[in-house]
């Protein structure tokens, strides 16, 4: 099994990938702007970064993740998903940097924000800095409001609005939760998400 680790992002962290690793971000206690730099300076290693967050009324989150490829044949996937409730404010900078000698790098970033509340603010900055042509790199970033049709459908099946929302949010996070192979870590994160959602 791959190495898996929870990273509590409460201060700036530089993480060196030495073997194939799953990194799961704990953003639940992040209060000030923080930065995670993932360094790939050993050939052939890979990393899957998974980050999930829920911002309740008036909460703020400001974080940066950087995948820095300095060696050959490394790969990285950054998967970040967030839910915004009333008056919350999120800022996420997701960077992919591929240096000159880092050929055969594959690096991707996927950043999705699901907006539930009103008066939200969201700033997304997905960045690519590519200095080598023998690479595959891309990012996708979406911000969208929860689908009212889906809520309506669930409500017509007897669910309250809150329950309907929760089901959709669960589905939104489930895609990433299922990718956490380490069951202990998955449960810890799932529990934290659930308690945040029920606040």
């Amino acid at each position: 099994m791959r190495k898996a680790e929870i990273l509590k992002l409460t201060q700036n962290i530089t993480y060196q990938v030495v073997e194939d690793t799953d990194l799961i971000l704990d953003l639940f206690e992040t209060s000030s702007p923080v930065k995670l730099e993932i360094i790939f300076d050993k050939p052939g290693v890979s990393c899957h970064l998974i980050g999930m967050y829920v911002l309740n009324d008036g909460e703020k989150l400001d974080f940066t993740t950087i995948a820095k490829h300095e060696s050959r044949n490394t790969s990285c996937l950054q998967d970040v998903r967030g839910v915004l409730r009333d008056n919350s404010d999120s800022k996420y900078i997701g960077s992919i940097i591929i240096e000159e000698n880092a050929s055969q790098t594959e690096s991707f970033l996927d950043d999705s924000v699901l907006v539930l509340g009103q008066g939200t603010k969201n700033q997304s900055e997905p960045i690519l800095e590519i200095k080598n042509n023998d690479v595959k790199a891309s990012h996708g970033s979406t911000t969208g409001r929860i689908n009212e049709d889906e809520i309506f459908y669930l409500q017509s099946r007897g669910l309250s609005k809150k329950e309907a929302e929760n089901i959709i949010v669960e589905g939104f996070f489930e895609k990433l939760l299922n990718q956490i192979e380490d069951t202990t870590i998955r449960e810890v994160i799932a529990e934290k998400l659930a308690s945040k959602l029920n606040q």
Partner: protein
Amino acid sequence: MQNIVINNDYKEKYGFHVDSNFTHKAQKGLNEDIIREISTNKNEPAWMLEYRLKAYEIFKKKKNPNWGGNLEGINYDEICYYLRPTDKELRTWEEVPAEIKDTFERLGVPQAEREFLAGVKAQFDSSVVYSSLLSELEEQGVIFLSTDEALQKYPHFFEEYFGKVIPAGDNKFSALNSSVWSGGSFVYIPKGVHVKRPLQAYFRINAVNMGQFERTLIIADEGSFCHYVEGCTAPVYSKDSLHSAVVEVIVRKGARFRYTTIQNWSNDVYNLVTKRARVEEDGVMEWVDGNLGSRLTMKYPSCYLVGERARGEVLSIAYAGEHQHQDAGAKMIHAASNTSSTIISKSISTNGGKSSYRGLVQVAPGAKNVKVRVECDALILDDKSISETFPTMKINDSSAQIEHEATVSKIGEEKLFYLMSRGLNEAEAMSLIVSGFIEPIVKELPLEYAVELNRLIELEMEGSVG
């Protein structure tokens, strides 16, 4: 494997230089006297001189931007800020001096299908030397003049709109342009008028160290429709020259305006342009932007969507070759509800060139149901070249739907292999793939520009080892 020589035969094909007999050549460097001289020579109203002087004060105070490209090569004291080749503006082609005609002849302007073009505006150095307008347009009440001439004839438009979309203090280069602007086009499309054929302007720098500071002001009145096209090629010189234009577009209620630019500056030009459109209710603004050549381009066409249901679109291509940096992008400011925008950007970096996409999408609080789609694709053709993407999305309303996607890749070996197995050599195969890559934007260009752009790309790709 892929060693693409950029512009190796540029000099023969585009880099010709015809001597000009300048009737008026201002000295190098900038000071208040030069600005007064420009204004006096142009016989401008007093408020314009005042505006220029104020802008000059702002220019002196502002610093070069500390982001984007390297601007250290610009020496503001070595630049000529104003000159013009002939004293008066010419109405018919016959009156145009032979040497200037020769330059345009080689650029293909006179041959450009006249029927297809609504009018020819050719900027030779700092003033427009030739302008023609089809009588059809005149009958429709369309005004298409050099900005200098328009200021004389229609000062009320200038009092109302000049410097309103892009104030002098917007950035250092808009301040510079506001203080020394000369030439450019003024376009007014009256209410409900549909201009069927594209209006065309042809720009060209033709003097060593000549700064070009054209100023374009376009007003598309309610319910009108027009397509405006500008294209550039410039001769090769060893000294750096600066091109810093300001383009202001006002799209009134229900109007639709498309602004197409194909720029192919020679490799020593700094191209620092501010382009912005204000789009009112139900208006549509489209920027189609092709950047080839130049040493450094910094250009981010913008749409300020201030009316409900306004729409903005930017389609851009950048091609960065040896010693070139294309720092291009787009800005979409959504200030009203139900506004939408699309940005599609394609860049190609080769032979050590660097291309950057720098974009901003901003949704104001209270602007409901905004929809945005951004797509940036970059192609890197060799291992010396660089590609960067810096998009910023500031979404301050909870109802917005934003999608952003970017990819960076090289030309797939399997695609090359397939085409080569069909009998193409490597250079031809690469050229074909690049043409395919930019196709979504090229197809939006008027025919002759599409042909020209494809020809330019082929030319740039020539000499690739294959």
